[in-house]
């Protein structure tokens, strides 16, 4: 029996794409809320490292990131995710759920649950390595009125 509920195992709809950049890749994600765009952006990054279809939910790790502004928060949040993958527990995620989200300036904070499993060569096709997250041409569309929530981030690969 899985330790996870059916709801936890259910995967979100894909709301991200990869845009052109000469050397690197630009992640573009969106959602019904800024939280959802953040969740999707994280998954988009993992999607570049492997085929997400091959990932099963076997583990859940909670992470937290803080920053002074929204751009910084997005940067730190993706850094935390990259760190999860780069050493213990070598986690590759196909689902992220934001549990806490504060966006006031000088006190931005995000807490989320990351679902996935340990990356295993053989089981998970090797995609491209993400070296780092960049601020380069970073854009955050946070338009509550017209319900437009979008993120653009360039990752260095």
């Amino acid at each position, binding site marked *: 029996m899985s330790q996870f509920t059916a709801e936890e195992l259910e995967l979100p709809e894909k709301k991200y794409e990869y845009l052109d950049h000469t*050397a690197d890749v630009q992640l573009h994600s969106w959602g019904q809320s800024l939280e959802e765009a953040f969740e999707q952006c994280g998954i988009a990054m993992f999607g570049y490292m492997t085929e997400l279809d091959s990932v099963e939910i076997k583990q859940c790790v909670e992470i937290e990131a803080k920053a002074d502004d929204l751009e910084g928060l997005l940067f730190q949040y993706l850094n935390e995710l990259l760190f999860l*993958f780069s*050493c213990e527990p070598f986690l590759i995620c196909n689902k992220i759920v934001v549990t806490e989200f504060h966006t006031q300036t000088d006190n931005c904070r995000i807490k989320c649950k990351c679902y996935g499993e340990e990356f295993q060569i053989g089981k998970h096709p090797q995609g*491209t390595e993400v070296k780092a997250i960049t601020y380069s041409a970073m854009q955050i569309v946070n338009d509550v009125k017209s319900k437009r929530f979008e993120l653009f981030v360039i990752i*260095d690969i």
Partner: protein
Amino acid sequence: MVVRQYNEELKYLEKINSYCWRIKKGFQPNMNVEGVFYVNSTLEKLMLEELKNACRPGMVGGFLPGVKQIANVAALPGIVGRSVGLPDIHSGYGFAIGNMAAFDMNDPNSIVSPGGVGFDINCGVRLLRTNLFEKDVYPVKEQLAQSLFDHIPVGVGSKGIIPMNAKDLEEALEMGMDWSLREGYIWAEDKEHCEEYGRMLNADSSKVSTRAKKRGLPQLGTLGAGNHYAEIQVVDEIYDKWAACKMGIEEKGQVCVMIHSGSRGFGHQVATDALVQMEKAMKRDDIQTNDRQLACARINSVEGQDYLKSMAAAANFAWVNRSSMTFLSRQAFAKQFQMAPDDLDMHVIYDVSHNIAKVEEHIVDGKQKTLLVHRKGSTRAFPPHHPLIPVDYQLTGQPVLIGGTMGTCSYVLTGTEQGMLETFGSTCHGAGRALSRAKSRRNIQYTEVLRRLEEMDISIRVASPKLVMEEAPESYKNVTDVVNTCHAAGISKKAIKLRPIAVIKG
């Protein structure tokens, strides 16, 4: 960014000669010095097209073209001479890739910028020679490629096989290749043929975050992914027989091994950590730049010094990393040919760093100055008789290793006096991307790329099929154009051309 029509932008650019363009002050705000870039007619088109595309009004999700980035770098405090774009230049973050800039160490306002080094600190190329010829290797080419692929951990999520614990890592960070030598992974002569003798003395591992060390530990001795590779190559052409001879290359057909890799997750994390620190320093010291990615700190500030010390540790990591893979390559060859690596004459010809900042002495306006030279996607190319190059190359000039792309040629150049004067002893580093990765994935067929490699009789072992499309030669500028431009402009001189016969990639 200053937004002007393309025609207006062109007024700030002036073609000095067939290989060189000048970027005048005013092209971007606050330029302290002028910019310059080296291109031939083919590369010129790519360069200007990038600028033209960026001049479309109302763009979303766009990025700065390389030529604008050269100009932004020219606006950094303390820059001397010119901000230089090499022929393989393309848009990066902050600095363009293929951009070099020097800052006066004695000017208190001078800065150091992690963006001018890049995330992959001390990414570089190493070339090993052998005494084998193509005819010796050809019958066992597939087995040898497989053996190299089995020996060297490659691709996303791969872990190193050189036994390491946290204490070993600390020592390796301080000692660089002296660590590899002590542990018996390399030969003493390897160090001689390496920039800085494979060890930056100002490395201080206490300035490195635990996070970087955690990322680095499992990855030491791994190739990585992206454009990194290990290749078996054969000498295809010798342009400078004497220089080649000094490098132990005697005839066409001789077999070499090229390794292109860097400091892996360790360096990436050091750079990321530094960017965060620098943002604070910039606010405090009120340093103005044209782009947030050009995060920097004064060289003499705590942040600046800490960065240089942790960057040196990352540089040492990269040398140990390439040394570990040198060891593994020697093992693979030794097993295949049942001969000791010694008897195969598998010496390191040279090892270059193309993402690094170094303190060097240069002549600026007739005066000797101590400069902090940033080379991002640019290789040091010192001329003959320079005190910092090894004895064996004192008369030829420093060997410069230019890695091609999957299936294309690589080159060995040598440094020149003219390069020392014009570009602070710097030249290109590789082909430089022309197509975006996403575009490559859309336009290029995986099977088509493999078929063409097969036609060229190149064995390939690759961990990720997607990468084959992204790294296809069509995605890059033509490395021959790039190298010929450097040669024609006189900033370095062609010595040897190498052709791949087997490629191992992430």
